[in-house]
């Protein structure tokens, strides 16, 4: 091969071309150091971003689960609001006298059986108000007797089972029994 090239080109021209290729095609140690540093920084940034996004996703889903506390509280508030009277009230248990369809008398009950809230309708356990990924740490009922009727103060404490820190969040509400007027 060399012999062939030699035959086609003068020696000086060939040396010059080889020298030029070496200069333009290779990397200096400084360039290599720069690229390694750049890619290391880039990799760190990407890894950090992935960790951050994973944490964000988890945190967002935890808040989404905790928001279920609002749904539970709304259900309790609605039942209390339309109740006619309080049948019995304990620190963690509330039984209300209310009306079902076609004005039939019945009771509804909210019972705190750690870590769930059971809902009982006319003596039957309907199920838990909370989903399995939510743990109830407290459900407290306090009766308020007014000159014209009754009210119930409710405090609900929950946390997400997916939260490694188990941060407890509270919901507060007080509801006047409209059926009691």
């Amino acid at each position, binding site marked *: 091969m060399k012999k062939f090239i030699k035959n086609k080109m003068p020696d000086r021209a060939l040396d010059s071309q080889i020298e030029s290729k070496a200069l333009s095609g290779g990397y200096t140690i400084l360039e290599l150091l720069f*690229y390694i540093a*750049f*890619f290391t920084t*880039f990799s760190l*940034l*990407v890894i*950090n*971003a992935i960790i*951050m*996004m994973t944490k*964000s*996703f988890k*945190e*967002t889903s935890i*808040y*989404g689960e*905790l*928001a279920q*506390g*609002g749904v539970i*509280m709304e259900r309790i*508030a609605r039942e209390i609001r339309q109740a006619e009277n309080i049948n019995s009230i304990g620190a963690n248990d509330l039984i209300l006298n209310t009306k079902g369809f076609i004005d039939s008398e019945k009771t509804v009950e909210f019972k705190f059986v750690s870590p769930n809230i059971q809902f009982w309708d006319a003596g039957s356990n309907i199920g838990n108000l909370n989903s399995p990924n939510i743990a109830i740490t407290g459900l407290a009922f306090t009766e*308020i007797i*007014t*000159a*014209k*009727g009754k*009210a119930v*103060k409710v405090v609900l404490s929950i946390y997400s089972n997916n939260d490694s820190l188990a941060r407890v*969040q*509270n*919901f*507060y*509400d*007080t*509801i*006047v029994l409209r059926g009691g007027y």
Partner: protein
Amino acid sequence: MIEVLVAASIITASILAAMAVAQKSIHVSRQSFHATQAVFLLEEGAENTRIARDNAWSNVVALNSSETVGIFTRTIVASNVNRDNSTKDIVASGGSADDRTKLITVTVSWSEGGSTIAKTLKFFISDIFS
């Protein structure tokens, strides 16, 4: 190598943008959750006013309370209501004061990411038991 640098820069910028969105999503989720808690505190404020009215109208007349519940601050303020002399409709100005109706303003505020967020609930309450 320039092409690789440009591509890497674009990817980096995209990842940084995604990271910013992820951070913002935490902020929005937390704010939304606190707003849900605040809604119940507002409702409780309204119900407490109703309880005060049920016990005695005089409890409502000069109602002006403030309390702290966790990270939230709740204020309940009663203000006078005027009615048109002929139609008896509630008017913003003019007319005559109706001593048996009050405008209740319940405000729940909390600090979120360095700024204060406030939710307000306004309603009229009347002395229906005297």
